[in-house]
């Protein structure tokens, strides 16, 4: 794994100028697909928003930075749409830089790993359709395959923001037991989502 970097000390101001659209995926540049701004936003906004959430943004920050990302890219004269994948990559890099920039401004120290590694994670889970829609939909379906106790634990954790102790109390297990239960459930979900994404890709 690449060493994490502090957003307060890294990513220079010139980060926004240092990437060229389309260069991320030059092999996919055979056919240029020029989308109108409205189409471009509709195509990529879910992906960028989820990418920002993946970076740890809360929903409101993700809303704001998604808007800023598109505005910055749309206003850049040098922006060329080579392909969906290249555009998505360019937008993600812009969003990443905006987030780092925001952290620096707010003097927050939050570790963010290198964009390349984040891209790998993104591609694994949400990059299949560039939006993450399929992955989230698959995850919803996979939730039904869990045991009832595992579903309760995860629901309490993610829907009700309950602590491990509270989850343990609700299920009459220790907090350590609750943690293990959720880890196992998440591992099962990962496998299930992987399978479903693989099936989708091969259908």
């Amino acid at each position, binding site marked *: *794994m690449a060493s994490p970097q502090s957003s307060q000390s890294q990513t220079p*101001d010139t980060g926004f100028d240092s990437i060229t659209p389309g260069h991320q995926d030059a092999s996919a540049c055979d056919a240029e697909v020029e989308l109108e*701004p*409205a189409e471009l*936003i*509709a195509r990529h*906004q*879910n992906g960028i*928003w*989820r990418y920002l*959430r*993946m*970076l*740890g943004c809360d*929903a*409101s920050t*993700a*809303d*704001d930075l*998604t*808007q*800023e990302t*598109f*505005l*910055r890219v*749309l*206003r*850049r004269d040098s922006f060329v749409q080579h392909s969906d994948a290249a555009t998505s990559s360019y937008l993600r890099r812009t969003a990443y830089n*905006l987030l780092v*920039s*925001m952290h*620096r*401004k707010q003097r927050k120290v939050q570790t963010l*790993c290198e964009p390349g*590694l*984040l891209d790998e*994670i*993104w591609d694994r*889970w*949400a990059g299949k359709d560039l939006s*993450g829609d399929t*992955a*989230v939909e698959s*995850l*919803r379906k996979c*939730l039904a395959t869990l045991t009832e106790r595992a579903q309760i634990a*995860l*629901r309490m954790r*993610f*829907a009700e923001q309950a602590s491990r102790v509270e989850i343990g109390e609700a299920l009459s297990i220790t907090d350590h037991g609750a943690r293990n239960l959720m*880890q196992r459930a*998440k*591992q099962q*979900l*990962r496998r299930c989502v992987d399978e479903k994404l693989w099936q989708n890709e091969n259908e």
Partner: protein
Amino acid sequence: MSENNHTAEEERAFDAMLDEAFGGSRPPDLSDQILSRFYNSDTDSDGTVQQVRQRKSSRPSRSRSKQVTVLAVAVTALAAMVAGVIALQPDHDITDSVTELVENAEHDAGGGNRPAVAGSGNDSRTQKPVKKKNPTRKLPKGIPMVVQTPDSDRTESELEQGDLPSSTNPDENEAAALAFVSAQVDAEMQNYWDAVGINPTPEATDEETVTRLGKILGAKVSADAVSEVDQLQAELAQSLNAEAIARRWLRQITNQRSGRMDAELRDRLVSEIARCIQTGGSFDKTVAGWLNGESENSGAFFSALAAGSRSVGGEHGMARSLAALTLNVDVRCTRCHDSYIEGTGQQSDYWNFFAFLKRSVRKDSDGQFEVDLGDNSSDPVFYELSDGRQRVADARVSAAWTSRSASEGYQRFQEFAKGLEGSSELASGVVNSLWQLVHGQPLRGGVVDPISAPNNEALERLEEQLTEDLIDSHFNLARTLALIIASPAMRRSVPEMLLPDNLWVASQEDTNAAMSAVDAFAAVLPPRVPLPASQRTDQVLRSLGMRIDSTGRSSLGQIGQGGTAPNVKRVKPLAADLPMKAELLPVQWLELIEDRESQINHLGYLAGQNEVPAYVQESVKSMNEAEVDTNLLLHRVWWLMKP
């Protein structure tokens, strides 16, 4: 790496998906917001975004933009002033004074703004950002004038320098560049202070202004944004800020009553207003949607207007708030009689409007408000004239309140809703309401009000500028709010005489002068936390010696009550603005009312109450027992009830 060989980033990514799968936040459709901002500020190129996100290297050029704009307005104003003076007073020898003005202006331009513009033209990276100081904002003092919009020649010349946004053409009824309008507002505000002879207090620091803004609006903006109106607009439109502003503005519109409505309805309404602020969407169409029932939040809107107890809200509260917001009409007096003081309102207009609302806005079986646009008839509404005669109301919106309606006014709700779209009445109502949100009183108050800015033509022009800009910008709330916040009035400091340390040593004359400046938006009051009714009552009683501590426990020292001496702990000081002495009545027209009870009732109506609340009546009783001077008593009654 964490357990199961997953990195923290992978865990976070998967947790984010799980959060969404369990019904957490989902990706919103931001197309409208992005496109609106993209097309609305197309001329800003990528500058606006950089402003939003702290790209400090771009600050100097933004500052220069406004400096040049201020200079442009100053020169135009000077030209208009010279022309006006010569035209109006041809027989007077004004050569010297005009020459002096011109020389001063040239000196300001040459010695102040021009070097900053030229010097930092294309070399901003090597220079520190130059903050705007007072001198760059000050225009030649003198005769109040109408600041003209720029002629094409000057605009073009400035465009060539690349310092002004390129979309200013007022003839096409499009909103002028924000920085330009902001500079006009600056100029008009200075004109106003000059005309009414008030010296504004020194500018507060950007940080102080940001802190004050946070307390007023609940919004967080950067210090940089205070002097950069484009950046300010962008930051106000961010989601959290938009929601905080929407929430407080709704309270403002409803005279603080929205806090008492159903929370779910309120949240829906707040979200819709916040979306308007975020996207720059047309608020006039939103209002029309609420009024004609097409909006899903139509019922929520009327619930907000009618929220609160009978003493403050209900149907009369709804009529009062709706008339103020949508028509910029003050109906506080005309429920009971024609407007004697202002001389503009008729009692019949109020009751006709009330009947108009009553006919079309009703509660359904679930107690929710709904708009009924059918040709329904309703029970006639009777009202009593001041001479005791009864009259039946004619359900309609008076033609005197609207500039677009036919001579008989609006008789149908749909016509009324449609007529408000793009109307100057709605725009001025919104402008005054937003101004009140920021400054605590409308831009142009009434003569009847205890606190009101001295009215003159400059103030009227300022209101017209903001109103026209709101219409031209298609009712972009964030833009108008940014203009209001960026105006010189927002950056004023607290007068020394009103600082807590000086409060007890200040002479009445000094205090009056400071309060006059506050009334004219040329100074601000010390920050204060709004006190709930119980604490305000407590403060009044404590000032009378009727309550020794803030716990409310009785003591031997209390008048008319027994008890034991309490341990006096944590005695809070009295509020800085609690009236302790008063030479005059809160408003002089109260002299025309003979009995004190009626005077108190009138203060209640001014405060937006339907009747004087019980806690005020109790305080009045205590003050009467303590033989408090009438003037001071009425000042305290106003202090207890004022919005």
